[in-house]
């Protein structure tokens, strides 16, 4: 199962709800404004509790576009667009959260 989050955690509850229902071993990829959740301050409050049971990815081009590349929390794996496609094709079920 792959969950895709594209909204800032400060704007939307989509990440919070995703983390609530995601099963252990699931993958989460942060894209677009969702990448702000991968920054240290935001991740401290939200992602850290989940990082032990989930794999967390973030789309590097979106991070760089927002100038957040020096602020990414440890435990978040960065992928490029090709890596994003690989994640989508390697999971049976994909949910794009709104």
């Amino acid at each position, binding site marked *: 199962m792959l969950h895709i989050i594209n909204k800032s955690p400060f704007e939307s509850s989509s990440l919070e709800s995703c983390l609530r*229902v995601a*099963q252990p071993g699931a993958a989460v990829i942060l894209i677009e404004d969702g990448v702000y959740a991968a920054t240290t301050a935001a991740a401290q409050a939200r992602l850290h509790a989940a990082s032990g049971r989930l794999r967390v990815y973030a789309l590097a081009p979106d991070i760089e576009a927002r100038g957040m590349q020096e602020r990414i929390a440890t435990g978040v794996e960065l992928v490029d667009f090709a890596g994003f496609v690989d994640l989508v094709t390697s999971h049976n079920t994909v949910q794009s959260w709104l």
Partner: protein
Amino acid sequence: MAEQAQGKKAGPKKFALVTRHAPHGTVYALEALEVVLIAATFDQDVSLVFLDDGVYALAKGQKTTGIEVKNFSPTFRALDDYDVNKLYVERESLQARGITADSLLVPVEVLDAKQIGELIAQQDVVLSF
């Protein structure tokens, strides 16, 4: 997904429509209802999942004449006629809003977050609204 697109998997697919938005303020809840009817028409295996503000769509007593939009809430009562009877509501979302399942428009199955996660992971296709 790719292997399904190539036709290796025959028969109906398992669809979950996950709605997280309240009715009327945005079009999401209405769109979910439209899509569930389409999927049912094509004999797909459809589950409707209500999370977060999505649970408000199932509130009884919606009267929309004052805001001049269609009240689509009675349509939920018609879903059974389309053999759509897999309606799941997250317990945490209900509790956070002070709503009990017996006060909703239609019978639903209340699942906790973990069970909802298991349900969604079993689907072929997940659509968000």
